[in-house]
């Protein structure tokens, strides 16, 4: 250990964007759970959304609005009942989840969901580095990959790059979530999906994770959809905002309008379009 440990940022230049960020479009996406039973739930009833390359869209909405379902449908965890998902004009709705994962990165709410606990930090990173590429009998962590992994790890400024052989199970929730974010972005996905990825962290860690998200997304100019319950976050980050309610997009705020929007203004807008108030929702509590 030398004195240099205090400030890793000198050696940590953010990578340049590769220009792979995709434009994305949902056309009339529908999803029903427990179809044809008494418990039928229409989670998405015709979602239309157009996202330009490099857009950072924040998504808010009450519980059960269909935000997670929308992200799961885009990623292919759930199949759609109808509609098209176009990535740079190409319909991806028939591809299986793992095939879509070649160009879609995801971070989940649960910090344990994004990493393999019994593998080491560098092994996890190496798995992420191979997104969308062949996985054969090449040595997983070799010296050139180790270099890339190290550079990425020091972006989070948690000292993870100094202990690449530590099992991920031994890391804190915040550290694991930071790793999940790196793993979702290290291979430059064309689309990044974040589902309340800071909601399970304590406020301070959530703030640093959000700051890291902003840095990574803007440095790589990733097309990003971020679900959050926190209106402040939804307004502070990204260049666009959409609000979902009962399986529909009820509000779509563009870049210029979003800059001027306040929490109060947003609540008012919701009342105008939905005719209900947020009182039962945890959004106001955040």
């Amino acid at each position, binding site marked *: 250990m030398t004195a240099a440990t205090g400030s890793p940022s000198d050696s940590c230049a953010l990578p340049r964007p590769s220009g792979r960020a995709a434009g994305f479009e949902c056309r009339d996406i529908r999803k029903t759970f427990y179809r044809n039973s008494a418990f039928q739930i229409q989670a998405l009833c015709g979602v239309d959304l157009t996202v330009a390359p490099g857009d950072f869209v924040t998504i808010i909405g009450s519980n059960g609005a269909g935000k997670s379902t929308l992200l799961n449908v885009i*990623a292919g965890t759930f199949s759609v009942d109808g509609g098209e998902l176009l990535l740079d004009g190409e319909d991806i709705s028939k591809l*299986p*989840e*793992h*095939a879509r*994962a*070649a160009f*879609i990165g*995801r971070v989940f709410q649960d910090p*344990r*969901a*994004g*990493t*393999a*606990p*019994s*593998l080491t930090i560098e*092994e996890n990173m*190496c*798995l*992420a580095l*191979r*997104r*969308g590429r*062949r*996985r*054969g*009998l*090449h*040595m*997983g*962590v070799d010296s050139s990959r180790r270099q890339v992994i190290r550079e990425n790890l020091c972006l989070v400024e948690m000292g993870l790059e100094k202990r690449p052989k530590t099992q991920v199970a031994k890391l804190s929730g915040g550290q694991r979530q930071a790793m999940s974010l790196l*793993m979702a972005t290290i291979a430059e996905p064309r689309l990044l999906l974040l589902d309340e990825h800071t909601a399970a962290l304590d406020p301070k860690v959530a703030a640093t994770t959000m700051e890291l998200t902003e840095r990574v997304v803007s440095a790589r100019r990733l097309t990003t959809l971020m679900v959050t319950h926190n209106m402040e976050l939804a307004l502070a980050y990204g260049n666009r905002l959409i609000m979902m309610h009962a399986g529909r997009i009820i509000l779509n705020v563009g870049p210029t309008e979003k800059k001027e929007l306040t929490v109060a203004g947003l609540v008012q807008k919701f009342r105008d379009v939905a005719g209900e108030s947020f009182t039962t929702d945890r959004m106001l509590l955040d």
Partner: protein
Amino acid sequence: MLVTLSSALEQGLLYCFMVLGVYLTFRVLDFPDLTVDGSMTLGASVCAVLIINGASPFLATLAGTASGAAAGIVTGFIHILLKSDSADTNYGPKLISGILTTTALYTVNLRIMGRSNIPLLGETTFFDKLGSMLNVRMVHWPLVATLAVLAVIVKYLLDWFLHTDLGLSMRAIGDNEQMIRSLSVNTSVTRVIGLAVANALVALTGSLVAQQQGYTDIGMSVGVLVAGLAGVILGEAIFGTRSVSWVLFSVIAGSLVYRTLIALGLRVDWIKPTDLKLLTALFVMIALGAPVIRRKLVKS
């Protein structure tokens, strides 16, 4: 006593490949694969039939091993057919696919052999051939040494494999399947490859056991899976699990410990050889059940 020890080590080393296979499925892939009982006899049958038909024992052993891989692939495909999309942690389809393959293999093995057993007395086996090449008689300690070298080679091959891109994805499947799928790994195909490797190891044990004991018998592998589990449990408990490379050695050592315990058990007057399966089942039950029971006791 020394002869007993050498034969216990011999058995431990013969069966350690099977134990590695069980480790690979149960622990690495989180797939409780019941194909083992079928694929071990499959390896032994294929190997024996080739040998009595004049094939080189090296080739026969290799073919026996490969037949196990085929059995693993079959189990993997049945699993793909039976599983529902969402339920990664559902063990039902995993158990059923192994049971189906094992049941089918009973017939296949009888068909391959044409009868229920094939004696190999008087045939040149893998060990005879290797012995004549090295100019030693392959019994007792020379046999133990040969098997030990083979075990070390297989251990390092497996160790290397589990650190390749493919091996890493395989380990991630057992750890967090949703995560590795969202990193673009086709988990179905990768799991099939894992099952193939595991059952190849099991069939290697089958081929070697047949040649060492001098016959293949349709019932030779009954209960071998539980013995494999006993080896894995003993190895992990005694020697630890600090890393993959380490745990592979632990598991091999577990196989040796298990066979030594069996040999010691047989020296007790009132224990008959036929009691061993019951004792092994009891041991595995206690080893798996103890933590559960302890938790329940602490709660109440």
